[in-house]
């Protein structure tokens, strides 16, 4: 009996020690109390509703695209699209980008840890409704990774039933099933792990949370699971909304099977299939190329072409 008692005691101590561990958060991390997403203190620089609180008719004639980033990310994820839009069209373009920050993101580890996936999705819904209330009639959405899952949730939850339907929903590397094979067991081993540290270079620490509380991984799984189930039952996009999916064929984070599930489970209101384009790419969120070199990746001409193609295709629809 003695050896069994000793082993049991050892296991108990290991579990207890695991449950009490905290991540080493420094001031140089987004997770800390010093660095925040800039949209928090400067919403006018990111949210169209804040930038134009009293829009003129000329403002209201613009097509607004709400850009939603992914899990642990920030407004940085869609900054290149904003910059490309400014460089390409300046003030004469037909559309403007509203870069939203998902709830509990871009703040602190503790804020993130306490959040639910519904909190993450809330920002997009609030901005969408604000734009409608201001009088905008041409609104589209683009979501990357979990931002795409938010777009899907807005469709299957009936959010658009009581408001103006979006003209377009663009899904970039949307996550319905994960490429990470251990993510599915997060609700089993999560409490022992407490958090997962992202394998990201230091240069990205200002723009993505480095430490992912196990609670948030479970929330992500819940959100993905709900999206998966709704797709199995069938989701119809709002009347008049066109859906286009872009997905990296060898996405290391959001399995490209997600695009297949979206194709099978989501249809336009007229019964037609959604548009899906598989990108010859092995990076997650192929529309973001900034800071990739620090991940040990060489940004190839193909990567650049993929990004440009997506930007151009979206811009062409935002008229």
């Amino acid at each position, binding site marked *: 009996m003695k050896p069994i008692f000793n082993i049991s005691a050892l296991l108990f101590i290991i579990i207890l020690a695991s449950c009490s561990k905290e991540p080493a958060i420094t001031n140089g991390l987004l997770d800390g109390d010093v660095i925040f997403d800039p949209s928090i203190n400067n919403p006018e620089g990111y949210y169209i509703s804040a930038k134009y609180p009293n829009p003129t008719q000329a403002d209201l004639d613009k097509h607004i695209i709400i850009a939603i980033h992914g899990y642990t990310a920030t407004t940085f994820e869609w900054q290149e699209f904003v910059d490309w839009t400014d460089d390409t069209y300046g003030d004469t373009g037909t559309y403007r980008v509203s870069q939203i920050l998902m709830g509990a993101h871009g703040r602190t580890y503790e804020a993130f840890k306490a959040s639910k996936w519904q909190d993450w999705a809330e920002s997009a819904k609030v901005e969408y409704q604000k734009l409608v209330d201001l009088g905008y009639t041409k609104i589209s959405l683009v979501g990357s990774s979990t931002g795409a899952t938010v777009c899907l949730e807005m469709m299957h939850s009936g959010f658009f039933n009581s408001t103006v339907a979006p003209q377009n929903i663009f899904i970039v590397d949307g996550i319905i*099933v*994960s*490429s*990470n*094979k*251990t993510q*599915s*067991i997060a609700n*089993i081993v999560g409490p022992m792990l407490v958090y997962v540290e992202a394998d990201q270079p230091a240069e990205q620490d200002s723009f993505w949370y480095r430490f992912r509380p196990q609670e948030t991984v479970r929330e992500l*799984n819940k959100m993905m*699971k709900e999206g998966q189930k709704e*797709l*199995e*039952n*069938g989701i119809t996009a709002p009347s008049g909304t066109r859906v286009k999916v872009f997905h*990296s*064929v*060898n*996405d*290391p984070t959001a*399995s*490209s*099977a*997600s*695009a*297949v*599930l979206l*194709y*099978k*489970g989501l249809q336009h209101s007229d019964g037609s299939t959604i548009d*899906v*384009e*598989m990108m*010859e790419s*092995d990076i997650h969120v192929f529309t973001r190329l900034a800071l990739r070199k620090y991940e040990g990746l060489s940004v190839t001409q193909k990567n650049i072409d993929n990004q440009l193609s997506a930007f151009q295709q979206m811009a062409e629809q935002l008229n």
Partner: protein
Amino acid sequence: MNKYATALGLVLGTFLVKSQDLDLGIRIQKTHSMYWENGITAQYTLAKFKPDNFYVGFSYVTSRIGTAAGTNALKQDSYIANVGWNFGKKVKPFRVHARLNFGYFHAEEVVDIFKDVPNTAFLFSPEFGLKYTFQKLPITLNLASGYYLFTGDGGESPGTLQPLYYHLDITYQIFKNN
């Protein structure tokens, strides 16, 4: 239809091997955070090698008679061969067992635009379970759990192939050689 014929052929092919006992039945399987995939299973012991402990078998599970039945879930099939060991020297109604599974996974491609999406994989998993054989009826219940290893990570592995699974086999002893 060819894959079904192959699966059935492999199961029926067990009759060609001189077996001690042959159990044939159904499998009800759930992958953690993924699909129900159900099917058939055949397990047999070999007369000339540890017939009270060692066994081999074959199973076929599919989402077609699971989550994919009547839904938009992906249709996918797994063909699995296994070697197993029933622990304990004596044959008892209740036994603990372990297996090593080797197999092949295939998910539907759906349409040509997805031709480059990973949809096949070789399978390998250790598995542990409990089985109970009824005394008066030649029926065995086997409740087990396994974890697929080397399914590949990143973007090279089928997304709907997830590692942790549980299954319940209900088998009937077709014959028993004493």
